[in-house]
């Protein structure tokens, strides 16, 4: 019973997911759409409840397989907030699904549960199970518009590459278990110094990195991202961009710092190279993109590179910077996808020039998207600036010991400058298009009240993390401290 209490937040999310499925049976078809609001309210309540949890010391359950510490709690709140916003976006999108609206909401909740389990995973078994829970739900979510070939194509691509990466992951876990004789991160950390030189263990860990690299879209496992981002229904893309990526990072951080802390220094060169290549690939491929969702796909690859920069520092400051950056990324990316979801249905096609005149049709939508782009570009006073500042600072703090980090910082700077080009291209398309649009063709876009509030929340979040970073910096430091005491 005590074990179940420790995973109370996850259990509550699962119950909410099942409740949505059940309620669906008694809800008239016209009302099904609004189940999303009910789900969002439930997630919001759980998010509030999470702030009531006080942890004098980390709690463990199921024989240490599941831990609840400040690090896990930080990510639990992160995922809950992300899911809340994604659910509101989903309601806006719901009328484009033929059937199964309630299932869409329920699947989001199940994916959320998977992410929260991942945040607490302290064992390769739970790592695999939670990752599969996330991935399998996303197979369905990405192909939910099943009459649209693009959506199906996205689903199939995600399925094939996801299954392949899961196979790598399982294989890696098997090798680790075979060498170290344990699945638990804690016990592996105790056993690791003795067996770390074993080739098999290292291969196993490398294969786990491949599996996680797929989730966070790191080069060379990024190939699915642009296609899936473009084809999947927008709410699914949004959740994929924020939740799934963050889940990959949670697990990567846990494995690197809890399971095999001795491995970090050996891998630091590898992580630096991966980060540099990912940043460059993301920003360079984003330049010629015309489709907005595809652009976001490449942007998410570039951002995975920036986050990996923080991981590659292998320091507490670096981890704390990663957490902060993810926090800003949540508001920024979800704000952008909320706008994409609403604005692009009123335009023909998803091309960036189709945004022309958006600021006349809905100033709030245009302002949100503009701010999201500015924040992604890393310009003050928004969240992206402070996040990038923390990342670069953490890298330079330890660059004395690992000179390759200087090269990585230089690459990151070049990446930021290149990224300005395409982020500002989006703003330009909205505010001063190449071909002026005629006033008559621009009916104003009506926004529902929950969506309006979500957009304002995203704007407030971007400003909050950019202008008053103190509180979140402290939270991130606290979380990083549990991982790297």
């Amino acid at each position, binding site marked *: 019973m005590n074990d179940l209490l420790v995973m109370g937040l996850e259990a509550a999310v699962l119950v909410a997911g099942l409740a949505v499925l059940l309620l669906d049976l008694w809800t008239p078809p016209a009302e099904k759409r609004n189940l999303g609001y009910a789900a969002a309210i439930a997630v919001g309540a759980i998010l509030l409840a999470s702030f009531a949890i006080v942890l004098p010391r980390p709690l463990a359950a199921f024989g240490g397989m599941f831990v609840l510490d400040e690090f896990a709690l930080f990510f639990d709140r992160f995922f809950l907030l992300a899911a809340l916003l994604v659910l509101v976006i989903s309601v806006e999108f719901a009328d484009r699904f033929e059937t199964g609206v309630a299932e869409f909401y329920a699947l989001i909740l199940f994916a959320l549960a998977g992410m929260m389990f991942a945040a607490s995973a302290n064992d390769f078994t739970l790592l695999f199970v939670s990752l599969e829970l996330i991935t399998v739900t996303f197979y369905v979510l990405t192909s939910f518009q099943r009459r649209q070939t693009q959506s199906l194509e996205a689903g199939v691509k995600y399925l094939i590459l996801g299954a392949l990466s899961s196979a790598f992951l399982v294989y890696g876990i098997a090798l680790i278990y075979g060498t170290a004789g344990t699945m638990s991160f804690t016990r592996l950390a105790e056993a690791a110094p003795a067996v770390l030189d074993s080739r098999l263990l290292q291969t196993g860990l490398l294969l786990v990195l491949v599996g996680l690299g797929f989730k966070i879209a790191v080069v060379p496992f990024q190939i699915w991202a642009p296609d899936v981002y473009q084809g999947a229904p927008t709410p699914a893309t949004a959740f994929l961009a924020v939740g799934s990526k963050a889940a990959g990072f949670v697990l990567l951080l846990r494995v690197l710092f809890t399971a095999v802390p001795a491995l970090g220094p050996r891998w630091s060169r590898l992580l630096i190279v991966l980060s540099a290549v990912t940043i460059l690939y993301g920003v360079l491929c984003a330049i010629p993109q015309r489709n907005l969702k595809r652009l976001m796909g490449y942007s998410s690859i570039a951002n995975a590179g920036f986050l990996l920069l923080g991981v590659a520092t292998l320091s507490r400051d670096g981890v704390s910077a990663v957490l902060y950056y993810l926090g800003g990324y949540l508001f920024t990316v979800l704000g952008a996808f909320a706008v994409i979801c609403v604005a692009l249905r009123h335009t023909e096609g998803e091309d960036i020039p189709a945004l022309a005149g958006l600021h006349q049709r809905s100033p709030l939508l245009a302002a949100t998207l503009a701010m999201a782009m500015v924040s992604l570009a890393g310009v003050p*006073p928004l969240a992206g*600036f402070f996040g990038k500042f923390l990342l*670069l600072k953490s890298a*330079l703090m330890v*660059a004395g010991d690992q000179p390759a980090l200087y090269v990585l910082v230089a690459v990151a700077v070049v990446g*930021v400058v290149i990224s300005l080009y395409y982020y*500002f291209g989006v703003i*330009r398309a909205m505010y001063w298009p190449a071909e002026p649009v005629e006033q008559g063709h621009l009916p104003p876009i009506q926004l529902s009240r929950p969506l309006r509030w979500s957009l304002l929340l995203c704007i407030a979040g971007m400003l909050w993390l950019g202008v008053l*970073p103190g509180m979140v910096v402290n939270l991130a430091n606290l979380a990083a401290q549990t991982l790297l005491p």
Partner: protein
Amino acid sequence: MGLLSFLILCPFAGAVLIALTPRSFNVLFRLIALLTTFLSFAAATWVFFAFHPGATHVQFEEFCPWVGALRIGWHLGVDGLNVALVFMAALVAFAAACCSWEIKERQKEFYLLLLVMTGGILGAFASLDLFFFYFFHELALVPTFIMIGVWGRGENRNYATFKMTIYLSLGALIALIGLIALYVAAGARTFDIPELTRDVAARPIAASAQHWIFPLLMFGFGILVSLWPFHTWAPLGYGAAPTPTAMLHAGVLKKFGLYGLLRIALPLLPEGAQRWLPVLALLCLGNLLYCGLVAIRQKNLNLLIGNSSVAHMGFVFLGIASLSLVGVTGAVVVMVAHGLLAALAFALSGYLQNQLGTLEMEQMGGLLRKLPFVGTLLALAMFAGCGLPGFANFAGEVMVLFGAWGGHTTVVVLAAWAALIVGAVYMLRAIRTVLHGPLPEKWSGVADAPHAWRKLPFALLLAGLLLFGCVPRLLTDRIQPAALTVVRAVNGTPAALMATTQLPR
């Protein structure tokens, strides 16, 4: 709330107010912008004249912790280095708001961005915290790009916007890397500039680190100030920019890089400075001579002013590179003087552009007859640009040349040529082509600045130039103690200073 916080937050409050005002109240946007920049200007004037000259300590100091975990604080204050810059920035901002009547489209967004830029500029110059110093500069920079992109003019504006964005962002990021590296190397774990300076004075940064951090700052800041050969964005960008933006950027925001060199790079990295400043002294010749020669060939008035503005930056670089008290003091005087001059020149050319619809000098001529007020001011601005005594530029430039004579004699000879001959050639040629000669038929309808309100910004800026030109002690007395601290931090040995501690009176 202290006076400095007030003068920084005023424009931001105005920006919020404008954001909340409905779009149809076009007059109100203008009024809010004028009122808030005027309040900032009034506060800055008070700070400038209440500033106690001769004191070395920071005055009007304010401190409030902001991110405790990282020891970043809201730390404001003025000393000799920045008190005149804050005053000049507020004056130019008010003048720019006055000159914004030419903007007719999307006034709400324009005034909002103008106020954000103003607040950012004032914040960057008044901050004594490394983080906010950079933060405010970036905050001011981005509106510049947007304003040029949206309200800019000419066919080249997209190219100019992107060029300027990429150059300046790259420069700013290189400087950011330099600043963070400096913070890491100092090992003090605080972003507070005075505290950092004290720590570094007690425990200098390792020489090997200084040798690579200083060039990062020098070139990062240098790109922001259009150091040759990274200057090509400047004339193009100013040519395409709307008048108020060009005034604020060329006049004030650009000085951020120079101020950063004086405030941070020199005192914190003395050994790096010793090694790299001779390079700067050579590069400044590129500004002075090359850009001056380029300015001679310009056919467009705005490009001419833009190139001459790049050329003038050479004096400041030379003054900094001289590492003498007279030279560094002169550099700060040139920064202030050039800020007023560049703003005045761009304001006047903006007026001409508005009246004529073109700035091609070949099409102009005889305009002095039609524009007695604007024409006279343009001539005076050009004289100031040649370095005529009576204008603040003369005071600064002559000090720079005196100060640099000891270390960089050849450079000074060439720089004097650039200032006296090359500068005079293009400035006087511009006066001749634009103001004298026969008046083409098509300009018979051109009208002078109609009423006092339109004349006010020009008059204010010119008054500043003349005031500091006739009474340079207003500036030098304030700058001298801070400049001495900088020079002493770099040169270290008092013996080397003996010859340079007295200013020519």
